[in-house]
């Protein structure tokens, strides 16, 4: 195993403006096989200028790795304006100690990301595989698609210990999302496959679903008026009201399933 520690220097986020840093170049895949000095020389965008990773982060490398999957990156410092953490990664591990900015785990294909804090919007956007664990809250568009696309998450597993924002799993086609807290409006919007489980409450879940399933263990506020009640069914011991929809479309398209704790 190899551990690469990247600690954002304090002065970087000290100004009146908190200017984001884009770190999609700092994944296990891309840093595997690089020496400490090579990593320090890796370019990252800070606003409209490119900087050396070493100028923005304190960099430490411990141990050896035989492949990207043996690389673990640990991020520290104020990460609230550090974007694209683990974006596109296929292997290895990233641990972020603190709140992270947008697109964490976007386009991820493999490996694991753990966020010890909140993740801003678009975490797990267009995710295809791997694991994403967010110990705090997730912002809007968790595991959703990019504007205009008709497919969001296709695979992998995402767990949010806290609450999640609007449009969780929009256009989701596969994979699993577990939200332990509450979700804002329109979870599973345009969903066509996969499963979203919400342990807390949801508002207007399942709109324009054509497939997949949403399970709400808490209460539903403002139920979408175009779902059809099917039956009371039992999921691992508990009773749920089972709905099919969304019938704001033709009967033929409306193949989504929504379970709400009875």
């Amino acid at each position: 195993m190899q551990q690469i520690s990247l600690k954002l220097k304090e002065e970087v986020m000290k100004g009146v403006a908190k200017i984001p840093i884009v770190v999609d170049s700092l994944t296990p895949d891309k840093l595997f096989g690089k020496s400490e000095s090579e990593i320090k020389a890796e370019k990252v965008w800070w606003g409209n200028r490119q900087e050396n990773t070493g100028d923005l982060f304190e960099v430490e490398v411990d141990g050896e790795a035989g492949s990207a999957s043996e690389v673990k990156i640990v991020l520290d410092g104020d990460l609230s304006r550090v974007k694209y953490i683990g974006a596109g990664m296929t292997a290895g591990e990233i641990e972020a100690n603190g709140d992270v900015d947008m697109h964490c785990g976007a386009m991820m294909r493999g490996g694991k990301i753990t966020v010890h804090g909140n993740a801003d919007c678009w975490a797990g956007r267009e995710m295809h595989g791997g694991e994403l664990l967010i110990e705090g809250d997730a912002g809007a568009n968790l595991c959703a698609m990019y504007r205009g696309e008709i497919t969001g998450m296709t695979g992998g597993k995402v767990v949010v210990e806290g609450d999640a924002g609007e449009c969780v799993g929009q256009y989701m086609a596969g994979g699993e999302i577990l939200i332990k807290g509450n979700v804002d409006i329109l979870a599973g919007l345009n969903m066509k496959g996969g499963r979203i489980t919400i342990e807390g409450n949801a508002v207007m879940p399942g709109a324009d679903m054509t497939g997949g399933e949403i399970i709400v263990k808490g209460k539903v506020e403002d139920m979408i008026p175009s779902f059809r009640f099917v039956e009371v069914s039992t999921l691992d011991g508990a009773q749920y009201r089972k709905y099919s929809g969304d019938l704001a479309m033709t009967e033929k398209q409306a193949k989504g399933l929504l379970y709400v704790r009875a």
Partner: protein
Amino acid sequence: MVEELLIKNGVVYDPINGVKGEKKDICIRDGKIVEEVKNPKVIDAEGRVVMPGGVDIHAHIAGGKVNSGRLFRPEDGRKGIEPKTKVCRAQSGYSVPNTFATGYRYARMGYTFVMEPAMPPIAARHTHEELIDTPILDNAALPLIDNNWMTMEYVKSGDIDLLAAYIAWMIKATKGYGVKIVNPGGTEAWAWAKNCELNDAVPYFDVTPAEIVKSLAEANERFEMPHSIHVHGNMLGHPGNYVVTMKTFDLVKGTKPYRDRPVLHGTHTQFHSYGGTTWGDFESQAKAIAEYINSNEHASIDIGSVILGDTTTMTADGPMEYSLYQITGRKWTNHDVELETGTGITPFLYSGKVSVHTIQWAIGQELALLIKDPWKVALTTDHPNAGPFIGYPILISMLMNKRRRDESAEEMHSAIFDRAELPSIDREYDFYEIAIITRAMAAKTLGLAEHGKGHLGVGADGDVAIYDITPEERDDAGKIQKAFLNAKYTIKGGEIVVKDGEVVAAPQGKTFFVTPECDEKLMDEMMAKLKDTFEHYYSVSFANYPVQDAYVPNPYEIRAPWRS
């Protein structure tokens, strides 16, 4: 800009001047081809293929419809992003590139002229604003004049002269180039969610599409118009439509052109060469269409060949886009344009695994290969409808290489073997024929050859493409595709704009527009009716309608006298 340029040791293909692959020097002074030069900058082509700058007869590159396509497809936009360079503006888009990318990518393929073939008259200013921002390319645009209420009223009353006066005013007011027809009558019917076949009466106007096409052809030939009517007929994309296509072409058989050119150009004919009765028994009828073109002289076509993959379809044929959207269920934009036309846009994926798409893919190439005389055929993809223009090099390599076609067919749905002709066709294009269908034919058909486009004769524009391939390498399909995608050199008006596939200069192109000259009295009579129409039914005033000169900063006017 270099004053004098000499291109030596090139193997030149210049069909308009009958030059068939001769080693020949090309001299350019002050942007024009000349006999000889004194102390030029010299480019040694080292035996490479040299052609006039490419001329595209039909590609949707600018205007409201194209921009709606860009606007509603950020997912396409992010596919083509490239950062700005010292010379180039930032780029985006694949099937709907931004205007800068459009100019650069065409130039890199050795093209120097593109015809925007569908300009809604009331939004003509928009089309011109985008053409201004499309670097390098010379351009022109065809206003849509077939579903216009004034047109249909004159067709109904049979006043061909007044109809001519109306199109003269329209072409002038829009700084347009000729008469474009798109689903005549059908687009007006679409304003009521209906459609028209060739001999249906248009709702409330009781004229038929057939009458509209015939009358516009007659009216067009009242002037010395450089181009014939440019026709996208009824029932585009419907199984069995090849019959309608031939009937449409037949309508104008008797019409006399003012000069030696066809009286009708049938565009993106691939979409109009369908057999069968449903998508189930869908089949190619390219053979029938090709035989028609082979045995007639009054019609030319461009192929509108399919490029496999995702693209953005867009046309003034509103009902057609609606049926396409009903098939895919994907996003759909529609824009009905008062008193004139409409627009439909929807994304589409052509897959080699789908029988219908495979047959469509075959049809475009079949048309090019089965029509004997290449002077009757232009290479297009009806960009972006059958695929983006950057797919041209793929098509060229297919047309030039049967083996490549067969290998592709093997990968595709088996329908290509039992419901299309392509696998049974042995013909292979040579560089000379390619030069015809990518330049010479378009320049001649559009009447641009005498204005310096599409050839390398003395006096022509200094537009030259040097491709990184020699005649000896013609069997290397891969190399052909590479060579035609990124020219070794593209020279525009004597200026080197592309070198080794990279854009090195991005000058402003010229806009060609036609001024039809109409008899005063006719014009006055028509104008009275026109002003009344504006007064009561248009949502903009007559005075604010015509395109101001500010929108054509680099104009090239072609006058079209009235034929008494």
